[in-house]
C-alpha cells in the first residue's frame, strides 16, 4: 500500500506501512546525524522506530550545516 507524505516540503511516496526509522533507512540517512519532525513535533531519535507514518504526514529531516 503506497503512502504519500510531504518530505522536506516535497511530495514523497513510499511503500507502507512504514515508520520514520524505515524512511530514514530508505533515504540512507543515519539517524544519529539528523533531527526529525513529524507534523511539526520533534520525534526523538529513540522513538523513530516506533513512530508509524500516515498518509499526508509532513516530515522534516534536518541536520547541521555551516552557519554563522
Amino acid at each position, binding site marked *: 500500500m503506497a503512502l504519500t507524505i510531504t518530505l522536506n516540503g*516535497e511530495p514523497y511516496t513510499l511503500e507502507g506501512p512504514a515508520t520514520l526509522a524505515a524512511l530514514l533507512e530508505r*533515504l540512507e540517512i543515519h539517524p544519529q546525524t*539528523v533531527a526529525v*519532525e513529524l507534523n*511539526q513535533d520533534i520525534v526523538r531519535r529513540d522513538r523513530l522506530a516506533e513512530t508509524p507514518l500516515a498518509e499526508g504526514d509532513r516530515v522534516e529531516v534536518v*541536520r*547541521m550545516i*555551516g552557519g*554563522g
Partner: protein
Amino acid sequence: MNDTFRLAGREYRSRLIVGTGKYATMEQMVEALDASGTEIVTVAIRRVNLADRSRKSLLDYLDLSRYTLLPNTAGCYTAEEAVRVARLAREATGSSLVKLEVIGDQRTLFPDNEQTLVAARQLVQEGFTVLPYCIDDPIVCRKLEEIGCAAVMPLAAPIGSGLGIRNPHNIRIILEFAKVPVIVDAGVGQASDAAYAMELGVDAVLMNTAIAGAKEPVLMAEAMKAAVEAGRKSFLAGRIPRKLYAQASSPIEGMIE
C-alpha cells in the same frame, strides 16, 4: 594569566566564537577554525538535501572533542519558527545550547527583538541555554537577562556589514548593567574591531563573515585570534588616560646644554 571565559557552566580559554558558514571549502573552514583558536562554533540547521547523498556532512569535518557546537536559528522570522528550529537543533546536536536569532527584515538582517523576547521566554522555559542575538539596546539586553538567557549577544553592526562597533556607547551601557556574559555578535570587519570590542570589556566576540569572507580566511582567522587576545589583555592591563596633549616619554633632566 589565568583568564578564562565562563559560559553556561563551562570554561573556555578562547574568547572568539566562530561561524562555520560561507567558506570556499570545508577544508578551508577546518583550517580557519583551527587557526582561530576557537572552542565554540556556530552551526545552522537546514533540511537534509535528499538529492545529494554523496556530500559529506559538516559533522565529518568538526572535531566535537574540540569544539562546542552552538546551533543557531538563523533564517527565522518569527518566535514560533525560531522555537521550532531550536528544538530540531537540540535533537540534531544533542546539546541544549542555542544561538537565538529572529530576523526582522531580510534586507538588513536586523533582529526582531520583540519576537526574540517571546522566543527566549519559551526556550528558557523548555530548558534551553539561550544565547540571543539582539540589537545593542540596554533594555532588550536587561530583559533577556531577566528571562534567564545565559548571555546577551548584541550586534556591533549589521550581519556581514563589516562596519565594526557602530555604537560603543550602547555596548558600554549594556556592560555597566549586565550580570551575564556580553558577547558582541555580528558586524566585525577587521582585527582592530575585535580588539576594540574586547577593550570595551565584552566577554567574547562572535564572527563569521569577517573570517570566511576575507581574501585569505585562514590568515584572517589568525589575525582575529591575536586581536581578541590583544584586546582582552589591553582591557585587563588598564590603558593610560587620554590627554589632549603630551607627556614626555624621555626624561627632561640631564639634557646637555
